[in-house]
Structure formats: structure tokens, C-alpha cells
């Protein structure tokens, strides 16, 4: 699971209102290089929940994202490289996603988060 996917996921238990972002716990992760697409990064930047990306990247030991980010930074190649790396090159293999409201843990095995709900959560 890339952190771009993490940025899309929220707790899906019925009745939960503050289910985003899910807290990331990671036991194993890998880095896979991919080509940087600056146009893509500039287009997606306004849609990314920065604080969620920042927190998740830190869990994976990547602390090179600025605390705050705004669109003016998109002209910096250095910023784009860091943003690209955090968003698309880090893959969580084993760990969990934790609902901020209920504490429910959704396990991540072999890179796939399992967000199937129990009967009483639907």
C-alpha cells in the first residue's frame, strides 16, 4: 500500500464520523523507485491531505517533508522529489490502519489492507 492510497482511506464502520485519517502502524515497508511525473504531482497536490501524508511518512522513517506545505513549493524540484517519494515510492507491506475514533484496527498483510467489516459494524 502506497501512501497515496492511505490518503484515500477512511474508517468505514457505520456511525463513525471522524474516521480520517487512519493512523498507520507499520512493521515492514519497502521502497520502490518510480519515475517522477511533475505534472501529476502538481495536479494532485491540492487534493492531498498534507497532515495525513506527513504523519504516515514519518511512521515509515521518512522525515523530509515540511511540516506545512503550500502550492508555492511546487516550483521546487527538491520539494517535488520528496513529495513524490512519500506519496508513490514507499509501500507498506505489513502493519495496520487504526480508526482514530473507535481504535478498530484494520490489518495490512502482504501490502493489502483488509477493511472488511464485521456484521455488527455494517
Amino acid at each position, binding site marked *: 500500500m502506497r501512501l497515496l492510497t492511505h490518503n484515500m482511506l477512511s474508517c468505514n464502520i457505520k456511525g463513525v464520523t471522524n474516521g480520517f485519517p487512519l493512523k498507520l502502524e507499520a512493521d515492514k515497508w519497502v521502497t*520502490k523507485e518510480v519515475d517522477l511525473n511533475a505534472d501529476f504531482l502538481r495536479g*494532485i497536490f491540492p487534493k492531498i491531505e498534507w497532515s495525513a501524508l506527513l504523519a504516515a511518512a514519518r511512521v515509515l522513517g521518512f522525515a523530509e517533508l515540511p511540516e506545512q506545505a503550500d502550492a508555492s513549493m511546487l516550483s521546487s524540484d527538491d520539494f517535488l522529489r520528496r513529495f513524490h517519494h512519500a506519496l508513490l515510492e514507499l509501500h507498506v507491506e505489513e502493519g495496520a490502519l487504526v480508526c482514530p475514533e473507535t481504535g478498530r484496527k484494520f490489518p495490512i498483510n502482504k501490502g493489502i489492507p483488509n477493511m472488511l467489516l464485521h456484521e455488527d459494524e455494517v
Partner: protein
Amino acid sequence: MKLKQLEGLLGGLEQFSQPKVELEQYPTGAHIASRMIYTAESSYEDISGKIVADFGCGCGTLGIASALLGAEHVLGIDVDSESLEIAGENVTDLELDIDFLQCDIRASNLQGLLVDTIVMNPPFGTRKKGVDMDFLSLALKVASRAVYSLHKTSTREHIRRAALRDYNAKGAEVLCELRYDVPQMYKFHKKKEVDIAVDLWRFVP
């Protein structure tokens, strides 16, 4: 990548080994899948450089086709872990990178805006009535750019009405009518293979 080449690569994918009838698991054939995603890219530029989600991805055919045609990020979602395992192997074999999520589409709750395009071959709702419409209504909520989907031709008017009137789609267009070969996979199939007519739709959310 040329259409023929795409179809060839998709033809080599592993499909369901023990399909589950309750989930209406039928493989999306290479012929249909390649035309669907190729059209999405060549006529509408909805794939390359985009974020694509494959709803009910099964063994990953449509998501893999999207990745092959240059999608920046692909997320395949399915409820069934065995399908996801096969999908993962298919992705590894082709040296692609696709994210997967195990989840019931109807409870998927994806944050809006990030997904550009949704590609799907939803259950036709013959076993569980209405599930095809659940997929469509959710896809139209999540996608910001386009939804590509296959539905039985016999339901064309119903689909069009629901999409435009109930799910607030701005556009609903049948791009072509295709023959969907349903191989004899389940015990209740009496014929060796049947062809059903399906529409390839493009919806604009």
C-alpha cells in the same frame, strides 16, 4: 502500446481458479478488457497519468490494463481474498505496481476527489439483485472524471435513467455493444458457453 499487444498481455493473466457464484465472479475477457481501457485512453485520455480505481477488481484485469496504458496509480478493490491473491501474482508477473484493498465496495467509503477514473466489470445483479446499481452509484460518487462499466444490454434504458436521474451523472453514453462470452464455469450453467450482449458505458460524474 497497441491494442493487439494489450490484448495479448491480458490474455496471459491468471483467472479465477475456483470462482464463487455468490459474488458473480466471471473473468473479464482479454478482448473486452483491452478494448474498454484502450478506448478510455485513446478517445478520452482518462487513463494515462491518472489515478484509476478498479471496483470489484477480481483477478485484476482492468486495473492491470490501466497500469499498462500508463495510469499513474491504480487501486484495485475486491471483497475476496483469493481473487486479490491471484491479482497480486498477475501484477508481479508483469512487473507492475498496483495497490489493492480488501473491502466490500458498498462499504468502501473512499475519500472523494482523488480518484480520476473508475473502471469496473460489476456483478450483473443476477444473483443479488441491485448490486450492479450499488456499484454504479458509488462509482459516480467517487470518480471525478469518468466511470467505465459493463452492463447487460437488456438493462440499457434502466441504467441510463438511473445514472442521469438518480445518481446525478452529467453524461451516460454507450460506447459500444460487445459480446461477453460466459464460459461454463458453474454447475447451473447448462450450455457449454453462452454469449450475452453487454454495453460498454462511459459515465461522466
